């Protein structure tokens, strides 16, 4: 004996009813909903609600931009596409001195950050969990310095100079791409940084979700240097 809620005669789930209202069920699945609806005329109102909501949104789209705005957008697209492509990691043709220069900048920033931190927060000696393994030129990237406070951030390296090779999923929220000193973050997208060892987010499937979470204690900030901004 088949269970009434699992057999072929079971009533459709609300999600199935919505899908039928959208015209997305075909064949036996559609016929089963139609048979059920024939015995439940009151369910027609539910179907109409589903369709009405879709219609409401489709009938009230955003106002079209002016022709000049479209032309300007197309012009910007053409302009950006006509520029030489910028690889997410260090391009092969880059002058050799860049890694050295950036290494020096990184080291200076790191040193400066530590010095300032020690000067301002002498008791701050919390160990840092080096969970982010990065490739910075030919040398490993420096580990994030001690964080006296949760909000303390340190420029470590240029975004274009760092490849994240592995990262603990729990630490993904600590990675920030942007310029913290100006208070404006540029959120990294999966196209910006390639993270090789990271599980997809179970909720939205995005890979990875690079943002600073509320519980981040050791934010690693990858700063885009001014002269490298597109």
């Amino acid at each position, binding site marked *: 004996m088949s269970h009434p809620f699992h057999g072929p005669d079971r009533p459709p789930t*609300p*999600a*199935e009813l*919505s*899908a039928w209202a*959208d015209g*997305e069920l075909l064949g036996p699945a559609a016929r089963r909903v139609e048979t059920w609806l024939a015995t439940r005329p009151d369910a027609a109102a539910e179907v109409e*609600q*589903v369709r*009405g*909501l*879709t*219609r*409401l*949104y*489709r*009938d*009230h*789209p*955003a*106002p*079209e*931009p002016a022709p000049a*705005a*479209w032309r300007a*957008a*197309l012009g*910007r*697209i*053409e302009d*950006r*596409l006509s520029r030489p*492509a910028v690889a997410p990691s260090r391009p092969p043709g880059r002058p050799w001195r860049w890694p050295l220069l950036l290494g020096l900048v990184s080291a200076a920033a790191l040193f400066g950050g530590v010095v300032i931190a020690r000067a301002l927060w002498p008791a701050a000696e919390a160990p840092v969990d080096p969970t982010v393994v990065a490739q910075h030129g030919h040398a490993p990237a420096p580990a994030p310095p001690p964080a006296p406070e949760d909000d303390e951030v340190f420029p470590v390296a240029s975004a274009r100079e760092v490849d994240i090779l592995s990262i603990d999923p729990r630490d993904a929220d600590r990675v920030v791409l942007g310029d913290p000193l100006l208070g404006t*973050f*540029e*959120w990294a*997208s999966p*196209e910006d940084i390639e993270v090789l060892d990271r599980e997809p987010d179970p*909720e*939205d*499937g*995005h890979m990875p979700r690079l*943002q600073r979470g509320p519980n981040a204690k050791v934010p690693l900030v990858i700063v885009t240097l001014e002269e490298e901004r597109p």
Partner: protein
Amino acid sequence: MSTVTAGCPPLPRDEELLQRFAAGHRAALEELFRRYRQPAFRVAHRLLGHEADALDAVQEGFVKALTHLSGFQGRSSFKTWLLRVVSNAALDLGRQRGRREAVSLDGQSDGPLAGELLTDDAAGAGLERADLRALLERALATLSEVQRQTFVLYADAELSYREIAEVMETSIGTVMSRLYYARQKLRAFLSERTLS
């Protein structure tokens, strides 16, 4: 007497346009833009609530979609690939800019919007289209990010469940479920305003 009707030449397929674009034909880009700018803009605007931001997301989406063509070829249509990139760009931009109007959730009154919101008579009832649109955006803002993206791809981009599943790299069942729960939330939000 026979008549000869000269039909319009068939429109080039997206694949042909992409080949021409790769060969450096500027007109191919213009045609792709003209073809898909509207659904891309509608999706971005719904997700961002602001024209300038939406145009930025459209621009970003076209650039990324066209510079990462290897990411879609043979697996989906250009339209679904583009909308995937545009909607992700819009969500990124929204996080970055704090959903500028947000969508001005705190500053707006719900009072004048009562009545018949779930019918087609709202405009006829004296409700300004812009007000109604703002209310619809506020309702969308109550959804989770994935629900909002799913609903917008269905309602505004008019993608099928299968196409949305491709765009979001998930199953059709998940799309069905997200749409159902999105609608439940939207209706609850809008019904509250109807009854207030």
